[in-house]
């Protein structure tokens, strides 16, 4: 039986399924697509416009769903609007790992917790760029990018993440991700984010250049953590080679709103939290 949500509505006309509701709610939650600024008429190009795709033998046309097209429009608008700049730091996750394994958690809630702490010192990364200026949010409403089995992307929001300790934060992230994958997110859960974390590290990425979830002004990517040789300071001040769990964090920020020094200081603070915070106290 074709229960709701398994996509018959895409292939067949006249049979509605849950994707229609998901799409409707996502549409309502998303900002209106901005009309591109009028530009003076351009001379006709010398070359002919690209022709329609003509599927040949062995190829298949994949029509773009409406939700896909909206995602595309949103990302394109963000890239066209925000002045994207990228910073990458490496992080020693040794302190995190001791607690993480005991609690059976992923790196994501630790990074989220570190971000929330770092935002206290660098509040400008947690806000919305508007025509009036930067609107800084007191609370951190943390968007978590969730992949829907390669079929699409949603960014549910942990509201007031700044009020949550490690385990509550981990729990909230887990619940939202499960709801997203089951396509039962409410419209509220998709609204109001002030900062976004995306996590592709489980595929072993070294560095990412994420697109800012406009009108937010920064997005942090968690890259793959693996055991790496690292120089560590010994008790006598000598340096020694050690094998440590190391992974990168990549921050895309909107250079229109603040500068590289501010963004780098924020990112350094995130790294410091991850490496030196008393994680045992958050068990």
């Amino acid at each position, binding site marked *: 039986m074709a229960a709701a949500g398994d996509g018959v509505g895409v292939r*067949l*006309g006249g*049979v509605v399924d849950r994707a229609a509701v998901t799409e409707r709610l996502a549409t309502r939650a998303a900002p209106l697509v901005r009309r591109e600024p009028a530009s003076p008429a351009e001379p006709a190009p010398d070359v002919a416009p690209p022709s329609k795709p003509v599927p040949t033998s062995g190829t298949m046309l994949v029509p773009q769903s409406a939700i896909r097209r909206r995602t595309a429009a949103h990302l394109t608008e963000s890239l066209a609007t925000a002045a994207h700049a990228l910073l990458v730091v490496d992080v020693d996750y040794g302190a995190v790992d001791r607690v993480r394994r005991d609690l059976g958690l992923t790196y994501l809630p630790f990074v989220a917790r570190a971000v929330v702490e770092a935002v206290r010192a660098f509040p400008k990364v947690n806000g919305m760029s508007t025509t009036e200026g930067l609107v800084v949010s007191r609370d951190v409403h943390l968007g978590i990018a969730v992949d829907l089995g390669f079929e699409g992307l949603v960014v549910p929001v942990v509201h007031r993440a700044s009020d949550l300790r490690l385990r509550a934060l981990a729990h909230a992230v887990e619940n939202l991700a499960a709801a997203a994958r089951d396509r039962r997110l409410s419209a509220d859960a998709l609204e109001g984010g002030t900062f976004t974390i995306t996590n592709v590290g489980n595929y072993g990425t070294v560095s990412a250049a994420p697109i800012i979830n406009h009108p937010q002004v920064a997005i942090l990517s968690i890259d793959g953590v693996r055991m790496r040789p690292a120089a560590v300071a010994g008790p006598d001040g000598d340096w020694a080679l050690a094998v440590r769990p190391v992974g990168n964090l990549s921050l895309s920020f909107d250079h229109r709103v603040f500068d590289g020094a501010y963004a780098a200081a924020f990112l350094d603070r995130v790294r410091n939290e991850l490496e030196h915070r008393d994680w045992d106290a958050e068990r």
Partner: protein
Amino acid sequence: MSTLDDPRHAELPYDYDPSELIADFHLACVARAIDQRELTLQKQNKVFFEISGAGHEALGLGFARALRPGYDWFFPYYRDLALVLGLGVTPEAVLLQAVGSADDPASGGRQMPAHWGDAARHIVTQSSPTGSQMPGAAGCAEATSYLVQHPDLPGCAAHADEVTYVSLGEGACSEGEVWEALSAACMLTLPLLIVVADNGWAISVPSRDQAPGSIDQLVSGFPGLQIYDLNGSDYFASRRVGERATAWVRGGNGPALVHARVTRPLSHSSQDSQAKYRAPEELAEEALNDPLRLLADALVGAGVVSIDEIEEIRQRASTEVAAAAQRALAGARPDPITVVDKVVAFTDLVETEPDREGEAVSMVDAINRTLADLMAADARIRVFGEDVADAQAALLDKVEGKGGVFGTTRGLQRTYGNDRCINTPIAEATIVGRAIGQAVRGLRPCPEIQFFDYIWPAMQQIRSEAATIRWRSNGAFTVPMVLRVPIGGYISGGSIWHSQCGESIFAHVPGLLIAFPSRAVDAAGLLRAAFAYEDPVLFLEHKHLFRQAYARDPYPGSSYVLPFGRGIVRRPGTDLTLVTWGATVEKSIQAAAKVAEVDGSVEVIDLRTIVPWDRQIVADSVARTHRLLVVHEDTMTMGFGAEVVAWAADELFDLLDAPIRRVAALDTPVPYEPTLENVVLPQVADIAAAAAALIAC
């Protein structure tokens, strides 16, 4: 006719168990308290509509005592709050619907308050149109004797002495469906108990402006109908008449109709204010005859309870309802994602291999043989409609038999019996309504409307009843029926009322599946699939194709299934995708051959089903051809082609190199004289011209 006395006397008029009397008085108070609580909650925006059962409590509770939940069947109407409480529905269940909770057992928050539904108690999900429950109730009652005579049908059960209860207000008696169903119930001697609750007002219209007399007067000439007149404000009279009328129906004597005079102390609904149109004196008079007051007086007068105990019962009822309301308000809120669940349960069937060596048959024979094969395998299938039977049973040996005006049902009565293929009165609403009631009982009815042109009296049954039943009951009730309807023109002389199309009107209705085959083999495979689905199917059979040589195919065998939603490429091509169905498939193939003469290559796609329709095959084809033409026989404006085109404009915009065009009937009825018909309906030349022009542009 039976009239019972005024209840106000010192002794109880009948010897009833005092504990039952106290329990029913308590339930009457609960019912009234629910009305009051809902009105209060509505003012707080926690309930969004209210419609009361006030004034009808004694009637409902009196009848509930004679009826058996989970044994008898119930098609109540919105003022039957006390009846459903008497049948065991809890105040909390009632209030969960009022607050729109996901836990509402009747509809999961989808329906207004007082739209009862309880599968375990056989309370069939209710719609809002007045009187439209009557044909379905007749069908339910019709199922009784069939199920008793055919025990052990899967998913079916019946009792020989069961009763189907149906109720309605006196205002609803103005509806034609009520009279159709009443006529059928009397003609078929159905075990149907009809209770007309007459509170004198249809919203603001008094009964004298509704009908020339009271319903018991109006039906007095109906042969086979047992009629009761009742003061429904009188609990004791209601119990007595409830016992008698139920016993009459239970005894297999045929239908009974109870005219129950009741009051309406509250306005029609929360959106109404009866002070605007009713005299204060009348309302004061009604208050004196309030059923709760009369019952309290009788119980106190007979010494069953004291005045203090009456007050204690009222208070207790009020407290219980308040607590039930609190629980209802704490119930789960509906999750928006679920709102599209249970519109249809579209099953993705597996297409089987047709027998390609079978005897060549026309479309009419393919349908006839498929029906026969299906009926042989499944005794739940009953075929009925106008002229579908062969002949009167006594004449079968002497005459050839009719078997439908097109012969699609020929021999089914002769082969499978007089109760498997049945002629009906010319009453389309009741043909479909009888199917709905039988489908609710687990049968697989196959009603026929003789011509698509005459389907409109049944529109309410199709659209408001059959197509909504799964959704409105949150999946508790379903109507798996296959409604077969000959459709279409190109028959020279058919004229306006034997030639129309109109599939788009039904495609607009969520909850229906629609097939529109163009060939014998597809008709056979789709018809078999139609019986496998669990939802109402509109099966459109094109009259022009019934006996065409080009529509003949080898009979595909008794197990061939063609799932809905699978279009087919009838003729491959590279320059233009032509989407069509029904009689214009062959015309489009001929047009494609003409276009080939001017070096255009047209790909003809036959959708085969309208709901669901195969978007994928259209997308795949347009990705190759970059041009789209939709052809149909129905009129252009808002024909189903408009849907195909709108979808393509949205989803295939990037693929298209030319405007999307349609060829369809002129927006004109189909005329009688052949040259006039020819100009209105799309012809090969119209299709070829449009296709060639699109390819050239």
